[in-house]
């Protein structure tokens, strides 16, 4: 269990003149819960977009499970074992909860258009197996009551949970969670924190999560990486990060970045 599952090597992404992610390097170990924190606009979501194939890096490398996946086709990332949720809900809003989660089984099913049209043999067997898996996840995340609801009509917290369920249905090795608990109340937040621990402990999935809720971050993370202005400014155990002067500066914005004049730190470009 010593080899890292994910290695980022000087990962960079620019948008025009803006360096949203700038030379970010860190490793995520197997079985770890690792958090990425940083002020608004720090480049956290952009980093996730790179790791999940939504965006292409400008430079740098992504190693996953020992292989270089930097140039993989975007649709391949799920099969490689990378699943994610989105900061702003990205559900299939006209589908039911079960239908949404079933889409997560896409890479685990193989039926062709013709087989699907007749719904015999393999398609039938696959659909039954997929449905069984989905029911397992529904139970795991305690969303039995809403399984047949159309997701567009659910509350924000419920939709977030459906997103998590959909990502779990992919059976990823690495799960990327982008601000799962933002906008949730205390109780929902605690539920999610418990689920994240269970996902790691019971399902054996490595978790990399972006989180603004510092209590959650400090409580359940094994390690924390801190971004500011696209750069990694600190990384380590929650205790190390908590007491790192660079982190305090970034969050309190007293001095901004060393190279920046004071006061321009708040939101970047």
């Amino acid at each position, binding site marked *: 269990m010593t080899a890292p599952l994910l290695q980022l090597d000087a990962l960079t992404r620019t948008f025009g003149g803006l360096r949203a992610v700038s030379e970010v390097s860190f490793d995520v170990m197997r079985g770890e819960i690792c958090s990425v924190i940083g002020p608004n606009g720090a480049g956290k979501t952009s980093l996730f977009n790179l790791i*999940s*194939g*939504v965006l292409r890096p400008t430079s740098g490398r992504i190693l996953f499970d020992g292989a270089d996946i930097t140039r993989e*086709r*975007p*649709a*391949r*990332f*799920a*099969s490689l074992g990378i*699943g*994610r949720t*989105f900061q702003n809900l*990205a*559900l*299939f*809003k*006209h*589908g039911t909860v079960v*239908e949404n989660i*079933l*889409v*997560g*089984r*896409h*890479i685990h*099913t193989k*039926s*062709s*258009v013709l087989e*699907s*049209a*007749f*719904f015999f043999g393999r*398609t*039938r067997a*696959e*659909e*039954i*197996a*997929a*449905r*069984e898996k989905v*029911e397992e996840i529904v139970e795991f995340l305690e969303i039995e009551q809403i399984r047949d609801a159309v997701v567009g009509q659910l509350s924000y917290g419920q939709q977030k949970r459906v997103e998590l369920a*959909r990502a779990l249905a*992919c059976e990823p090795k690495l799960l990327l969670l982008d601000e799962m608990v933002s906008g949730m109340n205390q109780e929902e937040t605690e539920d999610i924190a418990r689920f994240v621990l269970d996902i790691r402990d019971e399902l054996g999935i490595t978790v990399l999560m972006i989180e603004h809720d510092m209590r959650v971050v400090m409580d359940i993370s094994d390690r924390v990486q801190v971004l500011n202005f696209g750069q990694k400014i600190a990384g380590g155990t929650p205790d190390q990060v908590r007491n790192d002067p660079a982190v305090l500066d970034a969050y309190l914005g007293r001095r901004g970045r060393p190279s920046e004049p004071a006061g321009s730190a708040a939101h970047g470009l």
Partner: protein
Amino acid sequence: MRSGDFKETYADLIVLSDSRLVWAWAGVLVVALVVAPFVVNAYVLSLLTLVLITVTGALGLNLLTGLTGLISLGHAGFLLLGAYGYAIVVAKHNLHPLLGFLAAGVAPALFAIVVGLPSLRLRGLYLAITTLAFSYIISDLILEAKSITDGARGITVQRPEFFGLDFSSDPSFALLCAFVAAVALFACLNIQRSRIGRAFMAIRDNDIAARTMGVNLQAFKLYAFMTSAFITGIAGALMGIYLSFVSVEGFPFLFSIEALAILIVGGLGSALGAVLGTVFIVLLPEAIRILFSWFGGALESLLSTGVHEVKSIAYGVAIILFLRFEPRGLVGVWRDAKRLWTHWPLKY
């Protein structure tokens, strides 16, 4: 009220419908469709045949536009390709009608790759214009490729006869159309409840998330184009046989609009909606005709001189009214009515 849903096995969860009532009604409908052609008069039979052919075509477009969210104004092009595919194989080369139907599906599906590939990055208006241009290019190609298609002369098509079954009479041809429509409906419902249909739906609702789930967007958009074109092409072949003559003029651009109107009126993305919408849109001109004949005189003569224009206007008005007042279409109305019925007198 119906009792709660308790399922014993996972197989029970994936059935097309778990309601005995739905199956019973489907059975009644099948029997009615088998009997009707032999009892109704010629006028009603012609309408019935038209509805059945149109349902097949509408189901084809629904896969692309309703389910995958890729708008097409080139549907008439696929109908045309299907009709010519059949006519060339069966009428010109005297091959088996089943080979003709195969060609009627495969030819549009292959052309769908040609129009689909450049369309992979296009959406909305751009895709609409591209597919529209495609259908005009198809018309031109058919007119130019005289050695294969007989150009502007068109091809005369006989009613088919195969496996000892003779479809030359109107009732028996209506039965053939009913059979094809039923198979198309069944195939569409099955696609919708399997990984392919869910991938289509995922692309429509959120393509980035779909890709993150491992859906290959290019491949699945092409599948949607091809499957849609295949089913539409079969409808085109039936249309050609029904008209007993296949020509470019027989498949005007208005067909593309009619198909879109059907989906909007019926409810985008729903197979049941495609059926309801077809009945509505095919019968709409008839309703107008009856209405105009009551007023007689000028209105009636307007219809006889400008039936094409009156139809276009009626489709346009139907589209606008449904988009404005019932965007879920007839299928939405149907679901509301059903909920009211099953839960009455309770409110929920």
